[in-house]
């Protein structure tokens, strides 16, 4: 384009009833134009969330067929609440034998998320602030676990944690444990399941934290130092408060899938002592006549997960309002 020539206005219908002002682009689009950009997202939400959720409802309040497989009932006026009441009795009733599984899952997820945050924050901080030229390399190394499926990574841990696996051999080589008494990591230990969860989900914590910490302007940190704050004080009073949204986001991203996780316990433990909510759902789905109960368990889990999700959304909105 020749120098000095005005940029042509984008094509569109000119607004007939108003004069152009310098602040306005001068182009008028139909009212549906900009909202229509959300249509792919809305379609995605309808097809991949609303519709499947309705299927879950139709199964939870439905019945079973001849083979005792779940038979969804699409018409709400034929729905039954018998499966819902059955599950609620098992959680809140006199025997309430499912309740310990909910407590156990909550404890595992809180501990695993906390460890993810501690390790993930340190790693993300190092990469964002101190990695220098190696930043790209470290980022690639951090993302590389995503290339391998979660299942394969857990199976790898099974080999590493076996009685004669590399973990025990290393501990024995360092004389941290006796030579003839390897740690029985895979014999139904809660610590193995928690560490498995940490390993499986920690990349999801590091990446949002890194993305946020990398964007914190160094001028803010320099201002803190100029005002006499020590490095530690600058971290506590500037970096950490600024990274709160990323911490919330990371916690939500790692804890939500952890609540529904069942592979980690299946592969690294197998003991009823470490059963999680995801295992209850998995077992119900794979058992004759238990499909509707599995769907009810899914709905209950979704309702429980709404609590941290809503808290996250509230804190995010408040942070935006303060800006």
């Amino acid at each position, binding site marked *: 384009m020749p120098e000095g020539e005005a940029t042509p206005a984008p094509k569109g219908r000119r607004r007939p009833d108003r004069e152009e002002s310098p602040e306005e682009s001068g182009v008028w689009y139909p009212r549906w134009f900009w909202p229509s950009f959300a249509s792919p997202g809305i379609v995605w939400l309808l097809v991949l969330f609303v519709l499947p959720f309705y299927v879950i409802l139709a199964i939870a309040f439905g019945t079973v*067929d001849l083979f*005792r*497989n779940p038979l969804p009932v699409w018409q709400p006026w034929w729905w039954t609440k018998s499966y819902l009441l059955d599950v609620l009795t098992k959680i809140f009733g006199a025997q309430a034998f499912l309740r310990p599984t909910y407590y156990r899952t909550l404890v595992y997820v809180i501990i695993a998320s906390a460890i993810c945050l501690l390790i993930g924050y340190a790693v993300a901080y190092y990469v964002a602030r101190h990695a220098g030229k190696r930043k790209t390399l470290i980022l690639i190394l951090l993302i590389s676990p995503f290339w391998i499926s979660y299942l394969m990574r857990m199976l790898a841990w099974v080999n590493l944690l076996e009685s004669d696996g590399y973990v025990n051999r290393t501990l024995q080589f360092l004389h941290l444990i006796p030579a003839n008494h390897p740690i029985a990591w895979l014999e*139904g230990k809660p610590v193995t399941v928690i560490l498995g969860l940490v390993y499986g989900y920690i990349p999801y914590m590091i990446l949002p934290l890194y993305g946020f910490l990398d964007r914190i302007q160094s001028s803010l940190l320099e201002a803190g130092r100029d005002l006499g704050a020590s490095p530690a004080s600058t971290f506590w009073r500037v970096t950490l408060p600024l990274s709160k949204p990323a911490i919330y986001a990371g916690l939500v991203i790692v804890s939500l899938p952890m609540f529904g996780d069942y592979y980690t316990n299946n592969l690294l433990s*197998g*003991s009823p002592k470490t059963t999680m909510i995801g295992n209850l759902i998995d077992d119900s789905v794979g*058992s004759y006549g238990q499909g509707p109960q599995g769907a009810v368990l899914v709905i209950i889990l979704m309702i429980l997960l709404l609590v941290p999700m809503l808290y996250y959304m509230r804190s995010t909105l408040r942070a935006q309002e303060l800006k």
Partner: protein
Amino acid sequence: MWQRHPREGSKDLREGLERRLGRPLSRREFLRASAGAAVAMPTMSAILAACGKNPRAQTTPGFQVATPDHPVKLPLVGQPIADGLQPESGATLQIYNWDQYLWKHVVQEFCDQYKCDFKITTFNNMEEAVTKMQTGELKLDVFFPTYDVLGKLVDGKFLQPLNHSYIPNLEANAWDMFKNPFYDQGWQYSVPYTVYTTGIAYRRDYIHDDQIFGADNPRAMLWDPQYSGKVGVYDSYRDTIGFALQKEGINDVNTEKSADIDKAKAALLELISAVNVRVEINGAYAKLPKGEYVLHESWSGDIVAGWGYVPKYVEADYEALGYWFPDDRIGPADNDLIAVPSNAEHPVLAHLFLNFMLDFKNAMDNFSWVGYQPPQKQADVNALTTTEGLYSKISNWAAPAMYVPPWMPAAVVRESDLTTTGLRVHELSPAGDTLWQNAWQEFKAGA
């Protein structure tokens, strides 16, 4: 009888639309409205019809539960294929089976003989298998069901009746009991594949044979805290609750008495606190040979096949595997089946495959790999512990492996196990099944 002419309704429709619009309709407007109604009316009527039916009322079973005391002659659904047909040429035989439950070497021999290809699709459990079959998306020629779902599969028209003229090996080679099994009188839909018992697999380097065979209640050894962390049971509610029932001295493995189930449940919960039991499906054949377990509830075929999973194949590791089943042979004994789905695209080839798998040599070759014994008349059950199988011969193992290890005679299944002494696990009533499922869920939840 007087009938309304199909076009008669158009006049009413036009008048109705004109009334609503308050003006006459053009021809184009009327045609558009008629076309819309033509599409909408059947759709709406179908929806209204569907809405009018309660799906819960459509699930009444039309089959009887088969038990040894109440044998069932299944209804004839469809017709068997005609006699004397040639096998389909250039076909790919679609086999639907459990994982690791059929030696490809044997299937390849079948395909070499009948000039076909094969494809094996696997499932993890019968629930999954039946669910996928129900979708109708799978085009299968051969299916390996368990007998507890046979009646439902026939009722749901998922299996086709067999033409016996293609399968002479059943009469000639299979144990006599399979000419008239209780679950399929007259073997109209199924032929037997393997037989097995459910006992205990153990590590002989930890537990001597005399110790377990001489114990008052060998099943109670799984509850012994000295084996804490090294005990496993199957992730199968019928097998494991049945195991706990027998440990408690209850031999009715199909009981629907809540007092019995409560006893079994209490025993299983005690198993968690006593030894932190692990619940897996591959513990016996894949993990006990590696030393991850000392004791595991086990199907006989799993531990017989376990030698293939010993990490360093040397004589000592092979001999470390043991199997216990009671000397009086009172314990769970069952069999698995092969059948032909109703939508098989190569039914003749499928029939010939069933016959092929009932051939003595083919059945025994397959046994040498899968570890599950075929019910073959010609097989001298007393010689199974001294005869080397084909898989061992063509593999480079350090020592020859017999069909059944010589120190594991308890793993050999006899016809009398299934007809006389053995306990057959059959289907429960829905109420009874719920009782079992709830007990199992409480155990699995680790309450």
